[in-house]
């Protein structure tokens, strides 16, 4: 197995080891979660290049701020939020740049796909949304940021965030063909916070 010490350590143990001076612990943490971290960055960025830049910024920030982590959430959740925060910050700073928007009727994912592939289908549909709408639902629905927090990170009004979320959810429901299905039978066991 070699001498790699990260094997078998939990996320919290790796973070604690990093804070204690283990020079490899944080990198191991990054490698462990990098796929989901990059995916979140991709969702919340204009381009793959922006996603990579934001992910790097976020990891360096997490690396520096690790001693301040209070263990009031999972380490992975903490990392996710730092990445989304970094992406939204970049969007805010470059919000006047032109964006690629898709026609509303372009938001279809093709033939129905078995529910087991939900993650892939949702991901594909999400990536067809304009980045502003994508970032809003990633922050609010995926990461649990409040509308106010999201608005502050994006540098827009709260009503703008609500509007972007509304449009994104309607398009996603359409693209995922949820309006045509019996939504009641497809709904899971977990309730969504802040329901109507």
């Amino acid at each position, binding site marked *: 197995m070699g001498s790699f010490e990260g094997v078998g350590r939990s996320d919290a143990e790796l973070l604690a080891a990093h804070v204690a001076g283990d020079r490899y612990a944080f*990198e191991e943490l990054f490698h462990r979660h990098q796929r989901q971290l990059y995916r979140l960055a991709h969702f919340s960025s204009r381009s793959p290049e922006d996603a990579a830049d934001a992910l790097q910024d976020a990891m360096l920030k997490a690396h520096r701020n690790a001693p301040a982590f209070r263990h009031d959430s999972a380490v992975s959740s903490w990392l*996710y939020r730092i990445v989304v925060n970094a992406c939204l910050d970049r969007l805010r700073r470059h919000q006047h740049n032109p964006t690629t928007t898709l026609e509303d009727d372009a938001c279809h994912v093709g033939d129905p796909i078995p529910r087991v592939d939900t993650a892939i289908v949702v991901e594909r549909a999400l990536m067809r949304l304009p980045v502003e709408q994508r970032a809003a639902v990633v922050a609010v629905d*995926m990461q649990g940021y409040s509308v106010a927090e999201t608005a502050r990170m994006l540098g827009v009004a709260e009503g703008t965030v609500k509007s972007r979320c*509304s449009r994104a959810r309607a398009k996603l429901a359409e693209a995922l063909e949820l309006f045509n299905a019996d939504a009641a039978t497809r709904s899971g066991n977990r309730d969504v916070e802040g329901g109507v």
Partner: protein
Amino acid sequence: MGDDSVREPGPTTPELLADLQAGLLDDATAAALRQRIRADPETAAQLAALDQVRRDLADLGADESSAPAVPVGVTARISAALREQHRAPAHSARHTPRWQLIALVAGVGAAVVGAVVGGLMLTRDPAPAWSTGPTAERITASRQATALPLSNPQIVGLLTQRPDYGPLADPAQRASCLSALGYSATTAVLGARPVDMNGRPAVLIVLPADTPRTVLALVVEPDCNAAHSGLLANTLVTRP
């Protein structure tokens, strides 16, 4: 009822329901729409579909198992940046008591002296700046036995030689391999050479990195293809 002032919402569309869900409607319109939802199962189903979207998004946000692979160049670049960061350890960012500041000043002074002495030594030493040993163990995702079989100068040397793709000589397979590694199939390969990786045949390929001064060296298995990159090691190398 006294509800004459309540504005009837227009036709119930998914967009209107999404506005309700997002909290965009005024109280009167929202109340009227909720009443309609209670009375109309079809409208209620549409709202349930919007709730399902939120659940699907939340699930996706926590589902690491379905996340696709990260381009190796991104992994290598961030790994390198994190290692660079270790020159300023995270735990040093805490609030520093005054007595520690004295020690800090002394430490900085020692570092400055060290830097000056080091600089003088460097100016007197014409030896190459490259380490002669392999360096990939510092970059690769898994640090067990993943040292690159070539040193940095040897990797840089490949840039001036005709690429020898060995088992990846077929352009179609090479393009497929690049795709699996997260690169465009048309990415220019700057150098290549068959190598021995821990007793197993492999191919080392050199690709452009994010800056003109760096290149990315990757070691892959001979059967690297779109479905299986067989990535064994990777490292960023700075050109001299």
